[in-house]
């Protein structure tokens, strides 16, 4: 039944433009990156490298899912602190391990930590009503600082090799973290955001906050859980990252926030909320992972890579803005046409 729900203005002619405005930039940039990287490093598209690339993309991809949920909720929702939560939950894992907790207990501790950090963001944003840009900018630096404090400024290593199963092993050639963590999480989030009541509430909060409130939705509560989800997903990414290198790094994820936001925007999440999809985000993750992996193969410094990601971010938001204003004009024209037909 829920599947039948459409926004009132949707008709076949207009959804075409919506699709174009949502995915046009993504497809263009995907093509550009595929062509560019196969010129840069022709071997990048071999199957063996695809597995390596997905390892690269899983962690930032999980954070991008969290970012997507936060932005979907609207009200100026954005989370600049995902990379810092990734770093801090890693170092909490490391510190707990050093304090002689088992490595798996410590992993659970990292997940709890991630959720607490996300809930802290959510508290300031949704309960106190401070704008998300400001809160997450402040917590970005606070969490990064705490990560250094917890780890005493150095990498924590010495994890048992068995812990590497999450980040280093593979099942039938598919990386463990992709098969066992990323894909199930993606399916769950796809379900939660498109088929479950929570997803509808979140979208409605993003589309029309007043309508959502009048419909009896607890707007602040719905958004709060999106921030908690972003924290938890960053924690999951932190556990994977620690396992992948068998090292907890306090300076990890310094560029993750810009990558996660770029992926979300590129994947068609409207920056003012309400529109966006998990599948779009997953596809955009592939683009950024391909970019990062081929830059790595070509031995280009990661700072340059982040600069390119920044460029993609601006192009993506420009495409989104331009196409959506074009589709709005188109829609206005179509509506006028229909009105004159009726008359």
């Amino acid at each position, binding site marked *: 039944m829920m599947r039948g729900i459409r926004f009132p203005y949707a008709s076949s002619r207009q959804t075409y433009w919506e699709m174009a405005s949502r995915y046009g930039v993504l497809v263009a940039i995907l093509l550009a990156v595929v062509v560019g990287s196969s010129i840069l490093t022709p071997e990048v598209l071999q199957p063996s490298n695809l597995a390596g690339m997905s390892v690269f993309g899983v962690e930032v991809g999980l954070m991008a899912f969290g970012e997507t949920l936060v932005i979907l909720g609207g009200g100026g929702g*954005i989370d*600049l602190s995902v990379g810092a939560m990734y770093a801090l939950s890693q170092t909490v894992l490391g510190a707990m391990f050093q304090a002689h907790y088992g490595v798996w207990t410590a992993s659970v501790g990292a997940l709890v930590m991630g959720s607490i950090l996300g809930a802290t963001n959510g508290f*300031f944003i949704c309960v*106190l*009503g*401070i*704008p998300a*840009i*400001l*809160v997450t*900018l*402040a*917590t*970005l*630096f*606070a*969490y*990064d*600082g*705490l990560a*250094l*404090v917890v780890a005493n*400024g150095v990498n924590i290593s010495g994890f048992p090799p068995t812990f590497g199963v999450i980040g280093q092993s593979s099942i039938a050639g598919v990386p463990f973290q992709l098969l066992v963590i990323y894909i199930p999480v993606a399916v769950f989030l796809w379900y939660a955001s498109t088929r479950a009541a929570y997803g509808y509430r979140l979208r409605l909060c993003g589309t029309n906050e007043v309508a959502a409130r009048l419909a009896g939705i607890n707007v602040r509560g719905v958004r709060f859980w999106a921030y908690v989800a972003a924290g938890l997903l960053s924690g999951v990414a932190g556990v994977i990252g620690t396992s992948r290198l068998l090292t907890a790094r306090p300076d990890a994820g310094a*560029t993750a926030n*810009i990558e996660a*936001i*770029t992926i979300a*925007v590129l994947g068609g999440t409207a*920056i*003012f909320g309400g529109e966006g999809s998990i599948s779009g985000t997953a596809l955009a993750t592939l683009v950024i992972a391909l970019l990062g992996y081929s830059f790595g193969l070509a031995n280009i*410094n990661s*700072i*340059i890579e*982040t*600069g*390119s*990601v*920044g*460029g993609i*971010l*601006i192009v993506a*938001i*420009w495409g989104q*803005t*331009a196409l959506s*204003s074009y589709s709005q004009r188109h829609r206005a024209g179509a509506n006028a046409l229909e009105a004159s037909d009726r008359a």
Partner: protein
Amino acid sequence: MTAVAAEAGRAQNARRISMSMGYEWSLALFEVLGIVVLSMTTAGAFLRVTNLRALLVDIATIALPGAGMTLVIASAGIDVSIGSLLGLVAVVAGMLFEHNVPVIVVLGVAAVVGGLGGVVNGTLITKLRLPPIIVTLGMLSIWRSMVFALLGGNWISSIPLSLTSLTVLDGLGFLPYSFVFAIAVVLLFSYISRKRHIGRVIYAIGSNNEAARVSGLPVQRAIMFAYCSLGVLTAIAAMMTLGQSTLVQANTGSGFELSVIAAVVVGGTSILGGTGSVMGSVLGAVLVELVQDAVVLYRVQPFWQGVVLGGIILVAVSVGLAKKSQR
């Protein structure tokens, strides 16, 4: 009837002004208290002339871009790219110094580079109508990779002593030239923001962008002015930073944006736009630098600096909100 309404409006305005003045006075009082505590508890380390002069230069370095950032945030925008822009200006200046270009020319070039950085942000925001946070987030990483590309993995340390003298060592008596210059600029921007047309347009945009547009106000020009002046002021701050620490690295200036935004927000400017004063941001800059100085003087691990800065922002804004809900 209208006279009554106007009277009520005036009274409300007066109350609002006195409210914001009240906040600034209590902030200033808090800072005086902090200075007293710092002087008493650091066994004279705080009151040493070198420390105080360094503190004044630090305050100038934050307060200058703080004036521009106040305008940007008052227009309901934000600029998180200035840390990377500061790095870029520092690299360009350092490369010119390596070729023995005179200081005055370098200052000019730096201001142009900073201004261009602001023009890029302003153009993307006004002409393409992109959201400021996304644009400046993207530029943050783009400027940073340009810094890296220009440095090519090396660093620059050939900053002439004359720059250090100009920005840090020399001054009017006790006050370093940087500080005196910052006071002049801050007064100018305070005047622009309160009395000049373009300043009032910026606040109008921040209160209601659409209303400002349909009223025929020069929205694009005003926003461009805000980002452009922030860029130029950031460039001057970059030269002051170079005068203090004569080393340019790939990460020069990273995190600078947080200090400036913290100063502006602590100074009472709402991130939602339409309010805020340049003078408040100066008080914010003083608080931010006092705290950073305290972190050094009390020999706290430097890792705590980000935690403390982030905490200050959250506490200041929460206090501001609590006060507003009282009204």
